C-alpha cells in the first residue's frame, strides 16, 4: 500500500516541513517558537531518513532517525531550560534582546 505512494511525495513533504521550520527559525522572534521550528526541521530530516530507509530496504536510516530523536529530546530539555532561565532573568524571550554574549 505504502509502496504505491511515490517517493517524491514524502520528500516534498519533508522539504516543505523543513522550509517552514527554517523560515520560522529565521523570522520568528519568540525563542519558544524558534525552538519549535528547530524541532520541526529535525523531524523533517527524520522523515527523509525514514523514507530513504524504507525505499532502499536498509535499516540504518531508522537507526539514525532514532538517534536524532534522542538528541532532539536532550536538546529540547537543555534548550528549554536555557530559555526558561533567560525568561526568569529578563522577563522576555525575544531573541533580539539576547545579544549580551557578544560583548
Amino acid at each position, binding site marked *: 500500500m505504502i509502496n504505491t505512494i511515490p517517493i517524491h511525495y514524502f520528500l516534498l513533504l519533508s522539504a516543505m516541513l523543513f522550509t517552514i521550520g*527554517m523560515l520560522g527559525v*529565521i523570522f520568528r522572534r519568540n525563542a519558544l517558537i524558534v525552538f519549535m521550528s528547530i524541532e520541526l526541521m529535525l523531524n523533517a530530516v527524520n522523515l527523509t531518513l525514514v523514507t530513504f530507509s524504507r525505499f532502499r530496504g536498509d535499516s540504518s536510516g531508522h537507526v539514525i532517525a532514532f538517534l536524532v530523536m534522542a538528541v532532539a529530546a536532550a536538546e529540547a530539555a537543555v534548550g528549554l531550560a536555557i530559555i526558561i532561565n533567560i525568561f526568569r532573568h529578563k522577563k522576555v524571550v525575544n*531573541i*533580539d534582546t539576547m545579544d549580551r554574549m557578544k560583548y
Partner: protein
Amino acid sequence: MSNTALLSSIVLLPLLGALINGLFAGRLPRRVVEVIACSTVIVSFLFSLKAFLQLMALPVGAREIHAHLYNWVAVGNFRFDVAFYLDPLSSMMSLIITGVGGLIHVYSAGYMSHDPSYGRYFSYLNLFTFSMLSLVLGNNILLMFLGWEGVGLCSYLLIGFWFTDVQKAKAGKKAFIVNRIGDLAFIVGVGLLLGLADGNLDFTYLRKVTALRTLYLDPMMVKGICLAFFIGATGKSAQIPLYVWLPDAMAGPTPVSALIHAATMVTAGIYMIARLNFMYALAPEVLTLIAGVGAATALFAATIGIVQRDIKKVLAYSTVSQLGYMFLAVGMGAYTAAMFHLMTHAFFKACLFLGSGSVIHSLHGEQDIIKMGGLRKKMPVTALTFLTATMAISGVPLFAGFFSKDEILWKAFTNAHAGMTTVYWGKIFFVVGLIAALCTAFYMFRLYFLTFEGEYRGPKETEKTIHESPVSMTLALVVLAFLSVVGGYVQIGFAHVHLLEDWLAPVFAVGSLNVVETMGHSWEYATMAMSVAIAGVGIGAAYYLYMGAGTKIPARMMEAAPRLYNFVWNKYKIDELYQVVFVGTYRSFAHFSHRFADAFVIDFLGVRGTGALAQGIGRVIGRLQNGDVQRYLVVFVVGLTLILYLWLQ
C-alpha cells in the same frame, strides 16, 4: 735606554701626569699637583733633547728612530700599529711642544694660583701635551689622527674650562664641531688612502711607495686625498673657511691660548702637510690652492686684527694670519720656511699671549686695550718682553720673525711648481703677503702702544693694584722673549746659514723635488728690502696714529666710514653668515624631519595609519557580526542556496 723606551716615555709621561692629576687631584695638595704636571712635561722635554742628540749623532740619510709598542688594529688588509717615529721633523716638533709646553706649564702654576679647579686644569693640559706628542711622533696617519682628535678634545675641554659661563661652554663646543668638519674630511681622506696604499698608513711606507712609484696612483685620487687632508688642516689650523672657532677659543684661560691656540695645536695642519709632502708633490694643484688659501687668510685675518679692541682677540686674529703665512709657504713647496716660521711663531706668539695673560692677570680680567695704557711703568718685564715679541712678529730686522717671514715671502716670489698655471701666482701671493705684513706691523704696534705706552685709561681704583707678575710667570716670558730674538739665527738665507734646512732636508727630499727656483738668490735682497720697508711703514703709522701727532685720526676715520668700520669690527659678519646658511639650514632640516617627516608622515600616516586601516576594515566587517543569529541564518541560507545552485549546475 732603548729607543722604544725613550720615545714612549716622551709621549707617555704627560699622559701619566694627566691620569694622576685627573684621578687623585682632589686628594693631593696644590703644590704636588703642580710639580707632577710640570715635571712630567719637563722630563719629557729632556728626553726629547736626548732623542734629538741621538738623532744628530746618526748619519744624515739615516736619521730615523723607530719605536714599536704594539699592534693596534689588524683586520683584513688594514694593519695599524701603536708605534712612534722620530725623524728630524718630529724631533723638532717634539722639542717645541715640550719646551714651550713646559714653560707654559710653569707659567700656569702662577696664573691659575687663584683657581680652585687646578687639578682638572693641569690634567687637561698634560693630556693635551700627550695628544700633541702622539700627533707628531705617531708613525702612521691613524695614530696621528688619534692625537689630532685628542688635541681637539683638550682644546674643547680647556676653552670651556670655566663651564659655568654659557658663552665659554658654547665656544668650546663650537671649536670642537668646526674642527670635526675638518676631521670628517680627514677621515674620508684616510679611507680613500687606505684603498690606494693597501691598508698600510705608515709614513715610511707611504713615502717609499710614492717615491718609488710602485703604486700606480691614480692622480685624481691622490689629489682628492690631498684635498681632503687639507680641508682637515683648515679646521685644525684655523684657515678660511673654518677659522671661525679660533677667535672664540680665547674664552679659555690665557696660558691655554698660548699653548694650544698659538704655539702648538693650531700648527698641526702645517705639520701634517709637511709630513705628507711626498704625497702633495703628486698633487701640485692642491698645493697652489693651499698657498692661495694661506695668503687669503693671512690678509683677511690681519685686516680684522686692525680694529679689534680685545687684547686676546687681536692676538687670535694675528695667529690666524700667521698660520696663513705658513700655509702660503707650504703651498709654495717651501716646507722648511713653513717649519721655520712655525718655530719662531711658537716662540713670539706664546710670549705675546703669556704677556697678555700677565696683563689680564694683574688687571683682574680686563681685556679691552682701550681701557689700558701706560702699563710699561708698572710691569716693566712684561712690557719689555712683549715689545721684543712684537718686534719679532712685525718683522723688525734681526729678530726671529724677520728671518722666517722674509724667507716665506722670498720663496713665494721665486718658487714655482707644476701646480701653478702661471708663475704670476707666486708674485700675487708675495704681494698679498706683503700687504698682510704691513697690517701685522701696524696692528701689533697699535696693540703695544695702546697697552703699554701713554697714560692709563682704566678706572682709577684698579690702577693701584696693578703689579708685575710673580717670577713663575715672568720667567717664561723672559725665556720666550730671548728665543724670539735668537730663534731666527738657525736659518739666515743671505749669510748662508742653513742649519734648519740641512736638518730637515731628508724629510722634504721628495716633496721639494718638483719645486724649482725661478729666480736667482739676488732677489732675496730685494724682497727683504721691501719687507723691511713695509714693516717700517706699518710701525711708523701705528706710532703716528696711537702715540704721535695723529692720535685723533682713528676716531675720525671711524666716523668717516662707520659702515665699513662696523663691517670689519663685526669680522665681516662671517659668523652670522655661517649661522644662517649652515646652522639654520640644518636646523630647519632637523625640525622638518622631526615634526613632518617623522611624526606625521612615517609615524602618523604610515605606522598608525596602518593600524587605523586595520581597525577601519574590522569595524566595517564587524557590522555583519552583530549577534543577531537569525540574520546570520539568512546569510547562511542564502549562501548555501547559492553554493548548491552553482554546484548543481
